[in-house]
Structures are given as structure tokens and as C-alpha cells.
């Protein structure tokens, strides 16, 4: 099933795009699994996802840990820790 990926800040810059529609294979359970799979798409993806400790995620706009399940998700965002305010 297609998932809309969103990337922000330096994750977006390293991947070279702010969003993309992807169709992950069956069997990916968590955001971390999805990141593993996405890292193979390009050198930019690999660079952006090299350090998991610096990544945060939101599933259908709800913030969650990288081991959160992705089943049924339509929009998943990957980004660095936030720095607003």
C-alpha cells in the first residue's frame, strides 16, 4: 500500500525532496523498519537516515517513537528533533 512520506529540515535537504509516495513491501512493522528500507533508495536517503538517534517521526501527524507500528498509516513524516519557539 502506498504511503506518503514527508521529510523536514536536514532530512529533507539530504534526501533532496520534501515528500514522496512509496510502496513499502509487506512485513515492515515499525517506523524503524521503514527507515531501514528507505535508506536503500538513494545515497541521500542513506545519509539522512544514518544516525537513528537524531531522527523523530510522526504517523498520520501523531508523534511517536521509531518503534511505533505503521500498519494502516497513510502519511509518515521523518525529521530531526524540533527546534521551534
Amino acid at each position, binding site marked *: 500500500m502506498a504511503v506518503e512520506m*514527508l521529510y*523536514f*529540515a*536536514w532530512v*529533507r535537504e539530504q534526501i533532496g525532496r520534501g515528500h514522496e509516495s512509496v510502496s513499502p513491501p509487506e512485513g515492515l512493522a515499525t517506523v524503524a523498519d521503514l527507515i531501514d528500507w528507505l535508506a536503500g533508495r538513494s545515497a541521500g536517503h542513506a545519509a539522512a537516515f544514518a544516525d537513528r538517534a537524531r531522527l523523530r517521526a*510522526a504517523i498520520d*501527524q501523531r*508523534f511517536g517513537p521509531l518503534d511505533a507500528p505503521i500498519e494502516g498509516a497513510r502519511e509518515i*513524516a521523518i*525529521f*530531526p*528533533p*524540533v*527546534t*521551534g*519557539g
Partner: protein
Amino acid sequence: MMAVRVQAEPIDTAAALAGLEAPGAGAVASFTGLVRGDDGVSVLELEHYPGATEAALEALAVEARARWSLIAVEIIHRVGPMVPGDRVVFVGTAAAHRGAALDACAFLIDRLKTDAPFWKRELRGSDARWVEARASDDAAADRWRAE
């Protein structure tokens, strides 16, 4: 009154502050964050996650209202490019008494720093750098969870 705004336009703090003076309010507290001009930054860019940002700010406003019985709460966050002296964020609260207004205002800015999807990029001349999240911000936000 509860208002949350994410905007590219400059923040009008005078209007925001006046809007908080609702009937019954005896205390209005506000916090304004500005682009600092003293550390060589020429431009500050604010990126955000449209939709999720507004939802996160609304969730914070709702939590603050429930926790402190606020009469009014307003959060305005600017996005896009800014220069030193520009206002990045405004948080305002109104309550019957000062303790609630002051505490809720501090709560909102502390939690906004860790809970809302904004990212800062600093330009110093031709050098651009994404701002790193700070452990002190996590600690400041956590103190509202521990209580």
C-alpha cells in the same frame, strides 16, 4: 478565547496582547521570542510541518486551558525567513489571577519548544546551519510533566 496561528507575516504583539484582555481576566501574561542579533546570525529560517504544527499548538492550548482554567490563550508562531529583532513566537494567557496566567504562559513556551514541529536554520553570511535541539529545552518541558 483560544487562538492558534502559524503565519509568515510579522507578529502583531500589541493586537495579540489586547485580544487577551477578556471580561473577567485579572491577569494577562505574555512571552515573545525574538531573533537574537548578537551572535552573528543574519537570517533565521523557520520550517514547519503544516497541519501537524497547528494541531500540536492547539493541543497545548487545550491542555493549558484545562490545567489552569484560563479565560484566554493565544499562540502565534511565525515561519519563513526572519532577521534579527523579528518576533518568532508569541504566547499569551489570561486568567482571573496572576499565578495561573504566569504558570500557563511558561508552560506553553517550554512545551512548544519540544512538542511543536518547527525547525530553525541559521544563516551567518554564506554559512547555513540547522539549529540543534537542546537538552535544556527537554528538561524545561519535562518539569511540567513531572508535576
